[in-house]
């Protein structure tokens, strides 16, 4: 066996629950995961090869073929395309003389497409060997290709210098810009790392939970479950071995606020995990970090290292006898659905990221079937402020049902895309004014799984009672073709990212996309619109929140922009055949040298 393979397997003590880590290491060390590697791995872990492949084939950053010395993953999300991704893609293809999905020039450069990489505020963007390159132009592409041919390291390929804040840390070295445009209670740098930990060790875990409950904070990932209640449920579990996860798998196209928090406030996020760990009685915490943010890995591990040195992690934390807690980072490998909490657990256990049935909920049976709390990055960071400044202070912010503030990731057609922290209750109108957006046709609230709304709804406010959101806001100007450029792309995203387990989320986006495409191509009829509305309801019975919302791009655009569909369909026809006779006979006509006479 290849010694690298053996070494990696040994590093994880042949633990099949660490299969993700092993596959990630193989991919990075060997450039791809061969049939032989799969076989070796299966033998050593004493599982069948199809079980290894089941995990391997689920994540799109794992490959079974070499992907080149330089592997380019160019984002193909909506905003990337709005900002010129197609010209960039064309430049890559022309310069290299090969297409996306191929590896060219003697295994030097591989070109691949990928879903949103969390850089919507600086698109078009690509990952090259896991390092983000943002604001790409055809000119930059030609430079990059020349640099790759010259054998430069990815860091030598920068021309702009490093981005702001910790992006220029020697452990990050990225050109990513933070674009923090509005600071609020969470982003305001007014606490020292560890203050909240020193505070909680003076009080009981129950008192911590009470404080968080009193703040009325709800989960910031989008679902909005009360955080204090979640912690209370977990603490009440009989089983004593418990876990706390931080969900840093923000994969909803249009969201990138966790990227900024992870870059600028990692101590606060980890401190939030320590607080949560203390409250629920967990000894271990896991940060599940999306692979797209691999470039932050070393930096984040260093933060953990320093926290251990400062007695904020490890044993007898902050001097409290028996308060032991530590954190490790688990990387994903490219799967949107892993942002769903039970899929995230499955992935951390080395399996395909398939959501689980509920009940039981993770607070009863989660990671390794033990009680588990999963909180969003922003939630955990916010908890630190709540502990430091009190629930009374916090609950006075925002609205009655939505206390505190929310980080918004705002991108698309506006002058100042970036991260804005606002109090709940902020209106869409104000938001558009704040970011310098004019002549706005629509706003996608909450990413593709959310809703596409038009101007007559811009007076609505961001709150759990009105427009509940995880914070992704994409603005579309008058010049955009909403159906072709937005809705179709979002449907492609859901088709690509479905885990495939539920028949509903596996099939209905495909069925609906086909009808949508027909309408866009001018071959639709009025009934197609009604059909899509009706058929789009079926995935509501899917297992997870992602499956339940996978037809939302179509449903919400029909609801709010029905005229766009009606303008495209033939209103007089009851039936349009998809069968095209001249295309069907083309091949045989070519064969006998005739022109179709139809």
């Amino acid at each position, binding site marked *: 066996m290849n010694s690298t393979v053996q070494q990696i397997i040994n590093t994880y003590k042949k633990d099949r629950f660490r299969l993700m880590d092993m596959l990630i290491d193989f991919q990075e060390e060997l450039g791809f995961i061969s049939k032989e590697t799969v076989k070796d791995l299966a033998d050593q872990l*004493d*599982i*069948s*090869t*199809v*079980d290894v*492949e*089941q995990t391997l*084939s*689920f994540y799109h950053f794992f490959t079974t073929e070499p992907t080149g010395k330089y592997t380019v993953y160019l984002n193909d999300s909506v905003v990337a395309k709005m900002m010129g991704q197609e010209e960039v893609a064309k430049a890559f293809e022309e310069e290299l003389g090969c297409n996306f999905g191929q590896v060219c020039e003697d295994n030097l450069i591989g070109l691949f497409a990928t879903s949103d990489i969390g850089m919507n505020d600086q698109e078009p963007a690509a990952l090259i060997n896991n390092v983000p390159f943002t604001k790409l132009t055809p000119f930059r592409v030609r430079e990059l290709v020349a640099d790759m041919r010259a054998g430069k390291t990815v860091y030598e390929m920068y021309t702009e210098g490093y981005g702001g804040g910790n992006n220029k840390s020697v452990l990050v070295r990225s050109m990513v810009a933070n674009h923090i445009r509005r600071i609020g209670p969470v982003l305001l740098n007014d606490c020292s790392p560890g203050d909240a930990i020193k505070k909680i060790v003076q009080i009981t875990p129950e008192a911590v939970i009470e404080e968080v409950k009193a703040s009325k904070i709800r989960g910031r990932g989008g679902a909005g479950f009360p955080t204090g209640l979640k912690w209370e449920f977990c603490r009440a579990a009989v089983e004593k071995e418990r876990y706390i996860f931080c969900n840093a798998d923000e994969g909803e196209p249009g969201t990138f606020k966790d990227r900024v928090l992870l870059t600028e406030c990692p101590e606060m996020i980890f401190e939030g995990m320590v607080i949560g760990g203390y409250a629920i009685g967990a000894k271990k915490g896991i940060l599940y970090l999306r692979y797209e943010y691999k470039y932050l890995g070393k930096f984040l591990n260093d933060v953990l290292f320093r926290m251990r040195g400062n007695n904020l992690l490890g044993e007898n934390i902050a001097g409290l006898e028996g308060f032991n807690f530590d954190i490790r980072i688990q990387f994903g490998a490219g*799967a949107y659905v892993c942002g769903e909490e039970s899929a995230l657990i499955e992935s951390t256990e080395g399996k*395909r990221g398939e959501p689980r*049935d509920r*009940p039981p909920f993770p607070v009863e049976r989660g990671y390794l079937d033990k009680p588990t709390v999963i909180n969003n990055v922003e939630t955990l960071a916010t908890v630190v402020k709540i502990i430091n400044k009190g629930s009374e202070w916090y609950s006075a912010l925002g609205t009655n049902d939505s206390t505190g503030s929310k980080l918004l990731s705002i991108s698309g057609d506006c002058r100042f895309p970036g991260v804005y922290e606002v109090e709940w209750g902020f209106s869409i109108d104000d938001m558009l004014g704040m970011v310098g957006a004019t002549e706005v046709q629509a706003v996608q609230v909450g990413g593709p799984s959310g809703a596409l709304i038009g101007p007559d709804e811009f007076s609505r406010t961001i709150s759990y009672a009105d427009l509940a959101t995880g914070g992704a806001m994409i603005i579309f100007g008058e010049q955009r073709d909403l159906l072709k450029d937005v809705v179709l792309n979002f449907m492609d995203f859901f*088709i*690509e*990212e*479905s*885990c*495939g*387990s*539920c*028949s*509903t989320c*596996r*099939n*209905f*986006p*495909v*069925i609906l996309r*086909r009808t949508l495409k027909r309408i866009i191509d001018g071959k639709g009829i009025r009934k197609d619109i009604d*059909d899509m509305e009706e*058929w789009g309801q*079926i995935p*509501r*019975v*899917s*297992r997870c929140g992602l499956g339940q919302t996978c037809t939302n791009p179509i449903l919400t655009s029909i609801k709010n922009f029905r005229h766009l569909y009606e303008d495209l369909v033939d209103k007089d026809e009851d039936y349009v055949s*998809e069968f095209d006779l001249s295309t069907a006979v083309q091949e045989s006509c070519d064969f006998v040298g005739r022109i179709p006479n139809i």
Partner: protein
Amino acid sequence: MSNKIKFKIDGVTCEAEKGQYIVDAAWENGIYIPTLCNIPGIKPQGSCRICTVNINGRPMTACTTPLLDGMEIENDIPEIREIRKAIIESLFVEGNHFCPACEKSGNCMLQALAYRFQMMAPRFPYSFPVKGVDASHPKIIKDQNRCILCKRCIKSIKDEDGKSIFAFYGRGHKLRVHVDPELADKLTDELAQKAMDVCPVGSILVKEKGFDVPIGKRAYDNVPIGSDIEGNK
């Protein structure tokens, strides 16, 4: 003390053990909730979604939801029937199902459910995907055209060491069930037959054998699927 609790399905009061899965409890009470991916006695998975019922107005899968005292369940109502029928139709257009040429015809749960739900033709356009047939294994054929990805083979067919012979490959609409070539080589006749039997459609077939039971005398040839359960009343 008895652990029996009372619950209602479509207004009918039923009795069952607390914590039983809804589908099992319903069947014991002579009420048919259709299933496809579920195998009684094996941990349910809720992947086909056909057993969806409304509980307090919310759709839940009856195969995975444990029963609680006083639960009110909606099962045979137009809204739910329509969802089930649409799911069945979607499974037909997702693959390539040609019943007259299929060894499983008459024993096929998908076909039987289509009859029960009076599907004439799917409302959705056929996609006629190219999926292929894997006949490389000595004992079994895996016809991907007919696979509905229910996971029954994955969950219930393991070799003597507990290793998986079937597993998922890929995701989304490109999802497939793959067969482990090495383990399939060692498959016993008994396990091969079990795999074919556990497959609700004709996707797993035992080689060199067919039509042992003639058409006309098969499970669903003369009575609709679920009749045996409704006979429990």
